[in-house]
């Protein structure tokens, strides 16, 4: 930890150098113009100070050449900065395809993370170096923002929609993790630590040190069965609802004529508000699960549906298993299909 009078934050990601380069250029440019203005003002104020009470100024008060000069030069500089800044920004917001996928949920006032193998942690995030990490995030209540200064990146965590943050850590160490979007009483307490580890240490930690659940895709498969999704979404097709095999990331033809990409946000909405984006050729018979499945279980269901497109799929439990249903916070699991009013509410959004 730094102490005393630091001027630069530590750097621990592949993006930090790029952001710092922008900063150094911006500081140099600003110092140049600030000093130029300050020196000109002070020089003129002394050199042309009033010498007698009835004196007036000279007549030099227009010059097209000067006006054009000090229009063009700032314009050139800011456009250059725009392009440079946009280039860095696009790198920051587009995760590489081979990134390790984690999930995060924010709620007043804690962060919960889950690793692809099922390890869960609160307010602490263990990540390996040398591996792009992509975090799919959602809030359970108000706005939050996941911010790790040493990685020079942040992203708002919004209720009702997924956002993503990615980074590739470079230097092992323990670093601050902050909530950067005001979220109520304990906003400044919604902080934690990022533990950046070598890949070996990370594997070691995965194997032993962490509180592990089933991997999200497997847990999702259990939920899929216990809630009863598989009674209609028959895997082989031909059920009352479309098969979900291979659907993730694919174009889907909707009943209203539009097509959408079946990404995580689409799947989440289709679970919570089924009639909103109905698949062509099917009846709006699915009940809404709004308020019945937690954000973390939604992540698991989506991980399962995603795994159906990845080849090596987890197999769902054969039938509605009471033990698994107890784990899922889905009170309507068995009566879901018999909740007629619920299905008509979702379309407003």
């Amino acid at each position: 930890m730094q102490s005393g009078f630091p001027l630069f934050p530590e750097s621990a990601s592949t993006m930090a150098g790029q952001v710092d380069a922008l900063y150094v250029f911006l500081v140099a440019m600003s110092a140049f113009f600030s000093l130029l203005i300050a020196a000109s003002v002070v020089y003129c104020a002394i050199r042309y100070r009033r010498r007698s009470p009835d004196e007036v100024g000279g007549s030099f008060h227009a010059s097209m050449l000067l006006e054009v000069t000090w229009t063009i030069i700032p314009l050139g500089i800011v456009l250059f900065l725009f392009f440079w800044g946009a280039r860095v920004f696009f790198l920051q917001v587009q995760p590489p395809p081979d990134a390790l996928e984690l999930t995060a949920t924010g709620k007043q006032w804690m962060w919960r993370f889950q690793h692809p193998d099922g390890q869960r942690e609160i307010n602490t995030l263990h990540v390996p170096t040398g591996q792009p990490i992509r975090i799919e995030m959602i809030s359970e209540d108000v706005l939050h923002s996941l911010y790790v200064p040493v990685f020079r990146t942040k992203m708002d965590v919004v209720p009702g929609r997924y956002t993503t943050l990615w980074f590739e850590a470079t230097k092992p160490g323990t670093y601050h993790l902050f909530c950067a979007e005001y979220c109520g009483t304990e906003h400044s307490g919604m902080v934690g630590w990022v533990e950046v580890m070598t890949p070996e240490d990370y594997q070691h930690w995965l194997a032993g040190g962490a509180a592990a659940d089933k991997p999200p895709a497997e847990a999702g498969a259990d939920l899929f069965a216990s809630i009863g999704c598989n009674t209609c979404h028959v895997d082989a097709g031909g059920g009352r609802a479309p098969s979900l095999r291979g659907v993730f990331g694919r174009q889907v033809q909707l009943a209203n004529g539009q097509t959408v990409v079946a990404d995580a946000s689409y799947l989440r909405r289709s679970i919570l508000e089924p009639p909103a984006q109905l698949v062509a050729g099917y009846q709006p018979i699915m009940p809404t699960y709004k308020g019945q499945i937690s954000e973390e279980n939604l992540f698991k269901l989506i991980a399962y549906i995603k795994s159906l497109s990845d080849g090596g799929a987890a197999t769902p439990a054969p039938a509605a298993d009471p033990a698994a249903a107890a784990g899922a916070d889905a009170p309507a699991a068995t009566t879901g299909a018999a909740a007629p009013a619920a299905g008509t509410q979702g379309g407003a959004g």
Partner: protein
Amino acid sequence: MSAVAARTLRPNYLNAAYGVKSWLLTKDHKRIALLYLASVTLFFVVGGVFAGLIRLELLTPEGDLVSSDTYNRLFTMHGVVMIFFFLIPAIPAVLGNFLLPLMLGAKDLAFPKINLLSWYVYMVAGTLGTLALVQGGADTGWTFYPPFSTRFSNSPVTLVALAGFVAGFSSILTALNFIVTVHRMRAPGLSWFRLPLFVWSLYATSVIIMLATPILAITLVMLMLERSLHLGIFDPTLGGDPVLFQHLFWFYSHPAVYIMILPSMGIISELIAAFSRKRVFGYSFVAFSSMAIAVLGFLVWGHHLFVSSQTAFTGTVFSVITMLVAVPSAIKVFNWTATLYRGSVSWQTPMLYVMGFLGLFTIGGLTGVFLATMGFDIHVHDTYFVVAHFHYIMVGGTLMGYLGGLHYWWPKITGRMYPEFWGKISALLVFVGFNLTFFPQFILGYLGMPRRYHAYTPEFQVLNVLSTAGATVLGVGYLLPMVYLVWSMRYGKKAGANPFGAVGLEWETSSPPPTFNFDHPPVVDHEAYDYRRGEDKKVAA
């Protein structure tokens, strides 16, 4: 000397009538300006006390002076009071109100009764805000982001939003009045390009207020409806979209930054001409850059949403338009600086505020370029870097212009001079104190300290202590003028009509002016800032 004696006896707007009723029912723009001066000063003190408590809490990393909830209410109400009840009305409603008719050679504003109405509307809003304060104040941040503000907060959010809603109508009434007055009440010969630049900037500001404030009003109504009637607009559990609120809020609140800074830029143009006794360099460029800022200001709101989940493409569009705002801002700064060249520069108090403004606004503007650079913004968004940046613009820019203008026109308003020595001391204290308060916050933000934190990690303490020390100096710098300006109303040196040897119609009538401003309606046959008009002048070398 007999002329001076005669002048002091002549009736003016202050001695025209006495008694509470003569003030509370006045239609004189100059008296209404003083009603506004008293009210905005009161709210400035309230907002300043909140700022002081915030800085005192941040002296130590632990949240030990006040509770988290109290701290959240303090920074919320600091923002609400300073923005809606001080910065937005201060320059237009006090100095603009007083000077616009004088600068145009008019008897009053176009609609004197509407002018008084706007003050009453402001006071109703102020009363609602005060009621909310008595209930402990809101804790949502002045940005009111839902769903926290609509579903989670246990504070009088609706009342504070209502206060902002009502205050907006006061702004709209003043803006409407100014626009009509500039169009209809100019003295014969006073064409648009002979107008003082302060008038241009008030005009640009009024256009923004008329177009943007209704959006705020609608947005706050939707917020209140969702909070009280659970109408799903922003809350995702009710089918709403929280980011929609951010778009609507900043569609007003970004232009609002220009509502605050443009009038101050107009004052700087007036002051720099008067204290270098020279026409403002590039008059038409300075005038049109105000209009350019007013127009561009409507197209940049999305730069507040770079990390709010708007698409990268949307962010890119907002980034490039935001960059363009830097150009008219730079044009202004360069033209002001060039005005000093071969001028006759006087170092009186208002000019010291001008120099302070140039320094602070330059830093504030350049750090705006930092934030428009998306790749950098993603790191410092919602950190103290942003806090420092907007204080450099809104306090460094707006307040320096306001104080400079208040000193410059004080003899016109009261007929008495402010004490020059104390004026210079206060200008110096404000400049030094301001930089000591807010410059460390740029570094804090770059180091990663998020804003709106009641408690923070220990490595940020040294810079926070510097900031709090600066705030103490700044507080003394603001307190001084409140004392000596009041003192000068009785004991200050008598000013005469034109103590600074400035040009402009406001200096052609007596100080304080008579109720209807001019004995004979003035006729204008010269350009603005024509310091070399008339008999042979001694020209600076």
